[in-house]
């Protein structure tokens, strides 16, 4: 397969996945913001949404003021934000269009249709129901693209490259969503482990559709280290870092088998996967959750680079 084709497939799925994750971050932020934080009224949920999407610096630099309306507009629609949902879908669609011969009709239709339907949401309706409608729609788009790829694509390198994009991006995003908690400061008047803290952690779980899973796995009230355990180390949790790495290792191995050659990306993925399998939550918390997540995000980026160098250029 052409390197450029593989590259487009890889980024097409990354951008669809990214759009979904930004929608999830927005959802989490709007939930957090809908609960009165403190008596002094200081809340920074929207800032945390920007931080979780790695957009905070660019947002501030653009001179916008942090408020619900501006952040929603910026993350969902802004043309000048290369990571807005609109731009993500646009890039995904452009990637798909460049390689439509490598896509099944269903998958192309899912992406092209999404791009056409995006126009319906061009004007930001920031009412809670408007925001929710938009977020559900983005999640549906991602489901459709993912589902059509799963159901219709041949299990060959085209499929594997598109999967690699999904899991690299998802690992990155799960780490970032988990890190939101670091950015949402608890007001000094609120106790750690108190009502608001509890609410924040449950919102994070909810944003990745993991609240029910949490109860199934732990049968316990929501505790920060268990949330981290679920989203970092539990392989049965499909958005966890461990699960993403199990998939990355598998699909990279499929490629290596097909092409008859191992490379740097296989070694890196296996190394990181093994580390996640052997890690313990206590150790992670001892070193600092935020520090762990930041270093994971950097390593995950390095894997992306290794895949690019090995196959995509």
């Amino acid at each position: 397969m052409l390197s450029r084709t593989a590259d487009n497939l890889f980024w097409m799925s990354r951008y669809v996945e990214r759009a979904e994750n930004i929608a999830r971050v927005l959802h989490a932020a709007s939930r957090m913001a809908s609960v009165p934080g403190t008596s002094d009224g200081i809340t920074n949920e929207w800032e945390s949404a920007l931080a979780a999407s790695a957009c905070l610096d660019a947002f501030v630099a653009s001179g916008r003021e942090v408020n619900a309306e501006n952040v929603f507009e910026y993350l969902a629609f802004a043309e000048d934000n290369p990571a807005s949902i609109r731009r993500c879908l646009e890039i995904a669609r452009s990637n798909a269009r460049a390689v439509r011969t490598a896509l099944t009709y269903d998958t192309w239709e899912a992406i092209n249709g999404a791009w056409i339907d995006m126009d319906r949401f061009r004007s930001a309706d920031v009412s809670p129901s408007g925001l929710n409608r938009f977020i559900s729609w983005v999640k549906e788009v991602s489901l459709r693209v993912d589902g059509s790829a799963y159901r219709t694509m041949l299990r060959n390198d085209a499929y594997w490259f598109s999967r690699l994009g999904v899991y690299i991006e998802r690992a990155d995003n799960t780490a970032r969503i988990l890190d939101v908690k670091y950015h949402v400061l608890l007001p000094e008047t609120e106790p750690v482990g108190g009502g608001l803290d509890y609410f924040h952690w449950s919102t994070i779980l909810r944003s990745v559709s993991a609240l029910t899973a949490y109860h199934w796995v732990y049968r316990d009230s929501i505790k920060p280290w268990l949330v981290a355990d679920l989203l970092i180390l539990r392989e049965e949790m499909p958005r966890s870092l461990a699960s993403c790495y199990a998939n990355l290792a598998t699909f990279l191995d499929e490629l290596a088998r097909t092409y008859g050659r191992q490379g740097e990306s296989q070694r890196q993925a296996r190394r990181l996967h093994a580390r996640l399998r052997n890690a313990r939550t206590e150790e992670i918390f001892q070193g600092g959750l935020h520090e762990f997540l930041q270093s994971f995000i950097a390593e995950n980026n390095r894997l992306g680079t290794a895949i690019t160098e090995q196959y995509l250029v």
Partner: protein
Amino acid sequence: MGANFFDEMLGSPDGCRVPYLGLRKWLDETPPELIEQRRLDAELLFRRIGITFAVYGQEQAEERIIPFDIVPRILTSEEWARLARGLEQRVRAINAFLRDIYGPQDILKAGILPPELVFANPAFRPEMMGRKVPGNVYVPIAGIDVVRVDPDTFYVLEDNARTPSGVSYMLENREVMMLLFPELFSRHHIRPVDNYPEELLATLQSIAPPTAGSEPTIVLLTPGQFNSAYYEHSFLADKLGIELVEGRDLVVRDDVVYMRTTEGLQRIDVIYRRVDDDFLDPLTFRPDSALGVAGLMSAYDAGNVSLANAVGTGIADDKAIYSYMPEILSFYLGEEPVLKNVPTWRCREPEALTYVLEHLEELVVKEVHGSGGYGMLVGPASDKAMREAFAAKLKAEPDNFIAQPTLALSTCPTWVDSGLVPRHVDLRPFVLSGADRVRIVPGGLTRVALKEGSLVVNSSQGGGTKDTWVIDG
């Protein structure tokens, strides 16, 4: 109904031609609302599939769909047999002409063609002189534009020997028609066109260089997704099961062309290129071009890769050369042309120029190298100011223009907002010439001028398309 025009369905204002009886009955029986609904369905389908084309020079017009008319155009198998015979003959002559022009140049020696028409022509590629072309076929893919003026007369309006486009619309129009109007298909014996990709693949395989194995690697070279015909490029690559490559995917090493793949470099044998000559190889042609690949022409010279179409074929679709086609045909084949040329005045000839200047109101004047309906004057639709401006251009550069009478192009019933109306049509059949034989699928792309009275059918000028049926019986 324009009384001066031959209508392909009605023939005369009060009749209906036999091949159209079934369609006519269906049109009469089907409620207009239903037809309108299906028309909207068709449009939505085109939009969803992404069958788009780009219009250059217009903001935000990057992706438009070509209007699709749901009323098909019908040809009988007798009409088609004659057309096909003429098309094959025409393309045989074009290939012979190109072999000669880039070879011994007998036609110039015989004094049939003025040499400056060839040598001063920007479409002529001196780099191709003396080069051997794989399979001796210069134009594996030709699109010949044909118009009709009465029940018996077809004219060739234009030969497209460079990189003719539109075949994807021929195929998609048929798909959409079969999907939306199955009842029409059950009433007619319509000859299928869907074997076109197979025939194209066989044609491309037939010109593979001897260095290629039994399964040559064929690719389609596109300028990329911002090209107006990108949809077609990806569509064809898909149907042929070959890679759609851009210049940056290719690399030449030791006169062999490779593509960059996830498994390393893979050798390429045949390139169906949809990139113009100028941009193919910066070492031979335009040095500023990034669309092609450096060294391609030396790989070509070494006989390691075939190009379809060959470089330099544009000389054959030049409109000044066109006017000599009857002579060219008889020079190489010794045959009478089956399909007529439109009478043409070459403005480079002083008497012709005088005549053209005096009759601008009746004539269509075209730029010799123009395409897509740009740079032309349609006399009967022009006003005095337009004619005066054009006359100045003509006098300044007479060599650059030819003129033809305004043909009474046939019309076909076409569905517009107000219902069924006659609109002018042309036809672009696609002729495939392999090293082994010529292949033509029955039909082609019918283009229709959607504006009332307009004779310009080009998509860039607001034309639409129709499905084209060749029916048995």
